[in-house]
């Protein structure tokens, strides 16, 4: 293609949570700029958390994101419990992990079937996909519903669960209440295994990313609900040192802050988790991953849909294990008496790690709050992918190049609402 100066615009990018804009400038065949512009109006959570009671962030921060409220509840509780010197173990920790597994299943199924698969199959949405392949979309919806069933039973509802509190839960289920859920999850597991095979039949563009990858690592278990930080560069640190390694910078084109790890770009999310922790997956998840041709690591972001599908298998396996081993706790929660101090929490939201830090006074009032969501951590990596993808595919016409860029953005399941909103794609070729 010989265009020296062209501009290409898509008014808003679909099938992401939230809205943003993208500007790519190409000059004489060189990609000059690839900026992911994020205009989600700011909501100031960190500001209005100041002065609130330490028991409140579980409910308040859930409202940052309708797609991953449990992630916010879990990171917030963990950070505040840390500040108060309380550690949740045993059945209460297991129930939290079970609830979180539900969110992984639901969020991943939503992304795989409703948001991302249409890209690979050439449909504008899952509704049109259903006109040709109703059984496939119904399978995705059933899988999503199985994840929601966990959240509805344990959390009260799937969006902004009400049963999570500092120290545990308001009410914990009996073994008998969990039994029918297990039955349902076993059926969903078959659908999840089929999902891995289905998404693995897609065609994946070539792209090998070289970012450092950062994920939580948990002893003995594939990290979901707690752990320390590990990077593929070999760096490892405790969550309390998060602020010493990860620094957020404001960039003029975004209401989301950009995070850097020891000064360099990095990526969090399914690819990072899989590459760092794949050895900890369940036997079934490892088997379907191997069948899908995933090695011990995965660095092609277009294949992240396969990794998500493997993680759904794992989350279902894990939920079934937790239900099988469950013994109800004596009390539904531990007391978390306030004390002055600073606490940190990190968990793996479906789209990447989520860090919270709170400083409390002696009465448990919040003096300061810091929240670092996954999408702001990944923005730098997304921009870098786009830059390389455009450079490698300048021969494509505008329409196909735009579609490829949109698909590449959706590789990361960006949750712009967590930080931001309005994705417009503009490619300027000069």
């Amino acid at each position, binding site marked *: 293609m010989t265009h020296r100066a062209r501009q290409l615009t898509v008014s*808003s*990018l*679909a*099938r992401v*949570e*939230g*809205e943003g804009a993208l500007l790519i400038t190409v000059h004489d065949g060189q990609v000059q700029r690839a900026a992911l512009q994020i*205009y*989600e*109006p*700011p*909501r*100031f*959570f*960190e*500001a*209005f958390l*100041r002065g609130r*009671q330490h028991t*409140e962030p579980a*409910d*308040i921060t859930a*409202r*940052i*994101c*309708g*797609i991953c*409220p449990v992630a916010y509840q879990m990171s917030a509780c963990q950070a505040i419990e840390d500040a108060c010197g309380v550690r949740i173990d045993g059945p209460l920790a297991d129930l939290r992990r079970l609830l979180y597994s539900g969110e992984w299943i639901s969020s991943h199924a*939503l992304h795989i079937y*409703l*948001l991302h698969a249409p890209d690979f199959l050439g449909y*504008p*949405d*899952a*509704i049109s996909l*259903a006109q040709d392949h109703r059984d496939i*979309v119904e399978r995705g*919806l*059933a899988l*999503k*519903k199985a994840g*929601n069933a966990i959240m509805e039973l344990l959390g*009260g*509802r*799937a*969006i*902004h669960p*009400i*049963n999570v*509190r500092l120290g545990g839960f*308001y*009410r914990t289920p009996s073994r008998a209440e969990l039994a029918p859920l297990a039955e349902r999850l076993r059926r969903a597991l078959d659908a999840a295994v089929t999902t891995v095979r289905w998404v693995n039949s897609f065609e994946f563009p070539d792209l090998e990313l070289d970012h450092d990858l950062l994920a939580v690592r948990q002893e003995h278990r594939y990290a979901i609900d707690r752990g320390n930080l590990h990077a593929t560069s070999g760096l490892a640190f405790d969550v309390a040192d998060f602020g010493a390694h990860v620094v957020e*910078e*404001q960039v*003029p084109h975004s*209401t989301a*802050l950009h995070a850097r790890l020891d000064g360099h770009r990095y990526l969090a999310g399914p690819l990072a988790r899989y590459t760092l922790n794949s050895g900890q997956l369940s036997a079934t998840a490892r088997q379907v991953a191997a069948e899908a041709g995933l090695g011990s690591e995965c660095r092609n972001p277009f294949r992240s849909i396969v990794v998500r599908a493997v993680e759904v298998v794992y989350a279902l396996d894990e939920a079934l294990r937790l239900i099988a081993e469950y013994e109800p706790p004596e009390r539904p929660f531990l007391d978390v008496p306030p004390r002055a101090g600073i606490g940190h929490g990190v968990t793996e939201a479906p789209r990447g790690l989520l860090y919270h830090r709170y400083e409390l006074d002696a009465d448990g009032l919040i003096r300061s709050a810091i929240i670092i969501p996954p999408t702001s951590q990944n923005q730098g990596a997304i921009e870098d992918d786009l830059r390389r993808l455009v450079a490698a595919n300048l021969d494509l016409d505008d329409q196909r190049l735009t579609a490829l860029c*949109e698909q590449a953005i959706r590789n990361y399941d960006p949750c712009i*609402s967590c930080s931001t*909103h309005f994705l417009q794609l503009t490619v300027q070729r000069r």
Partner: protein
Amino acid sequence: MSTSSLGPTLSPGPKLAIWKFTSCDGCQLTLLDCEDELLALAGQVRIAHFREASSHVLPGPYDVSLVEGSITTAEEERRIRWIREQSRVLIVIGACATSGGIQALRNFADVAEFRSLVYASPEHIDTLATSTPISAHVPVDYELRGCPIDRHQLVEVLCAFLVGRKPDLPDTSVCTECKRRGLTCVMVAEGTPCLGPVTHAGCGALCPAYRRGCFGCFGPMTAPNIPALIDQLRACGLSEVAIERAFRTFNATAPAFIDVTEVGIRVHDAPC
């Protein structure tokens, strides 16, 4: 609730549009959470604008628009007026759209200070000093409450408007749902503070079912008796500050709740 006439009966295959303003995406996600109804609904309507779910967009006008989120920027003020012009029926969904949402806590504070607390270079951030509900900007045809909305209620509202009838949803308190469900009152039996007596029904008394007091995520019911509840909250041992905080969450600027938080709770005790 600012409810106007329902408008004429909709033609077959009406155009449904879903719009997002300042929000968490949770209420429009509720539509995708209708796993059993989604494909059936898609067969009855033309989904003309739903960016979270589709790349496909049909031009207006639209028969029914669902609007999520509150107004917090000048661009949003302009956009909601355009959407109103394009929509025969405009239904607002969720606490952000019906009362300004959690982000309306800024209305009690200095936004310049908020901005500088979150962003190092606040001059780049475009925002209004207030977060306001959709009804503060344009007439709305129906308000569906909740943070988030309830999916069964959403299906009822959509079905009602699609056949041209009024939604059959209660506007009483959470207490009525709690009694109907046969739950033991958490406030009377356990002394747990509960906003159920003044909170709009719709959740099915979810929190009391989990032995938790209602925290008001559906906003105020029609004509709530807030002074009576405040006495009861004091009897449960809540301090004045804690009572104020209880009303300052997801519907803090809803008219009945803002009285408590802005005028101050002591006003209810002032001698005549």
